[in-house]
């Protein structure tokens, strides 16, 4: 009993140190090359004219993500496997080639023509989209409309 309790506490403590944020020691130029191939291709394809300002390898606990700052100020975050996680176009339009067709259609059908997507983020429950009119819309991973979020 006593040993088990101690073991449990030690395990919890260990977990605590594992989740320690780790950014220090990042080398910006080396990080660029550590970006997964498909992420690099993703950037080339959807942001052909943009250059990388810096890349942060973010080891937050058990999850590793790559945060890319483009020289235009846009921020793109990738999963470890290279897939995009979040695109923040900083009030400019997120390239339509990235946005799932269903969402694109929903936006087009429900808003004025001058409304566009400025930010898109994958969540565990689906996809969250921020529009240029400050409205936040939530969809399922399949792009089905869920709700408006104020």
């Amino acid at each position, binding site marked *: 009993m006593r040993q088990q309790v101690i073991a449990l506490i030690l395990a919890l403590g260990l977990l605590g140190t594992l989740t320690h944020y780790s950014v220090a020691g990042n*080398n910006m130029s080396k990080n660029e090359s550590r970006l997964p191939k498909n992420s690099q291709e993703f950037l080339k394809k959807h942001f052909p004219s943009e250059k990388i300002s810096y890349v942060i390898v973010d080891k937050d606990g058990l999850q590793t993500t790559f945060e890319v*700052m483009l020289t235009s100020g846009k921020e793109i975050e990738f999963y470890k496997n290279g897939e995009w996680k979040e695109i923040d176009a900083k009030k400019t339009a997120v390239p339509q080639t990235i946005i799932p067709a269903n969402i694109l259609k929903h936006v087009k059908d429900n808003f004025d023509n001058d409304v566009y997507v400025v930010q898109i983020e994958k969540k565990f429950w689906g996809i969250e989209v921020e529009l240029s009119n400050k409205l936040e819309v939530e969809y399922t991973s399949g792009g089905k409309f869920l709700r408006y979020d104020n």
Partner: protein
Amino acid sequence: MKLIRYTYIRLFSLMFMLFILWGALFYISMMDEVMDETDDRLLNNKGLVVHRMLQQPERLLTADTLSDNYRISRISEQEGLNHRDSFYDTKIYIQIENEYEPMRVYKSSFKDNSGQFYEIELYLSTIERDNVIEDILFYLIILFVVMLGITLVGMRLVLKRTFRPLYKLLDWLNSVIPGREAPELNNETEIAEFKKLNDAAVNMQKRSRKAYEEQKDFIGNASHELQTPLAISLNKLDMLANSGELNEEQMNLLSQTFETLQRATRLNKSLLLLSQIQNEQFVQVSEQNLTQTIQRVLNDMLEVYSDKNIMAKIETESDFIHQMNDSLAVVLINNLLKNAIVHSSSNSLITITSHEKSLTISNEGQTALDNEKIFTRFYRAGNSKTKESTGLGLTIAKEIAQLSGLSLEYFYDGKHNFRLKK
């Protein structure tokens, strides 16, 4: 060490260790979290500053901008390629406040559209962070003390309650006197083991009481049944001695036999007396002045043992008077005095001290006797295996004292002391 105390100490040390471990881990985690919070903010600030910088480079980079929150400077490509991010704590002089303030610094790099590398240093005051850490530590210590205190008191209460039946049983067991009716054991408990213990103790008490009664009866019956055969043998020997037909050698043999038989008779009488006392056959009580009884008996006793030339001294502060059976009073005093005289060496002194509440008979002796054994049947201390001792005298004295509501105790203080106390 008492069971409760032992358990308490063991549990408490475990709790204390666990609390300390938990407190330390909690503190480390909280520290970590707070540090992360600061670093996260710096990281976030970097994003904002760099974004603004990339949008409006000329505004931010007018001659190596140094603001309160950040500093940006151009660095060569070589430096940029080898640049490593770092966080560190430092103190920075703040002119307005005219003092040094603790700061967290994040040193990083980025490049702009043209491929120019920049180094960026971001600052964040850690006064708040340090305050938060202090607060956490403060509340952690308070929580630690309070929790420990509550656990301490709670554990004590629970343990006390849990073991209460055990202590009650122990008290009861102590109150049980062999041969006496045992008091009722009212020891209700929900704990199965204690229930069993209660039952076992009560059963054992009943069995031991039964065995005690049987033994008492047996001794009584046996000594009773022996009286007549002893009487016949003694008297026949007496007749034989008086027949006048025996020669000297035969007479000597007869004398020895006679005396041995006398001893058996005395022993038997003592046993009978003991069983009579234990069966409480001496019910009539009257006021007995034991100090006077001692004075009366002492002279006879000293006469008989006159060859030992023992001196006796009676110091009377006040007479020791007690309600008890008269025959037993005489037997009690006789046995105590005889014990003192027989175990005294020649020319020694016996002191009798009489107070209102106690009566002490002391005789000289070299070593203390075994307090546990002297009052048990047939115990003879060391070299006192004399012919005249039946080994029952003190046992009888003790029984009489007990029956008469007195306590008889032995203690040694350079002398052997037997003390009767009310």
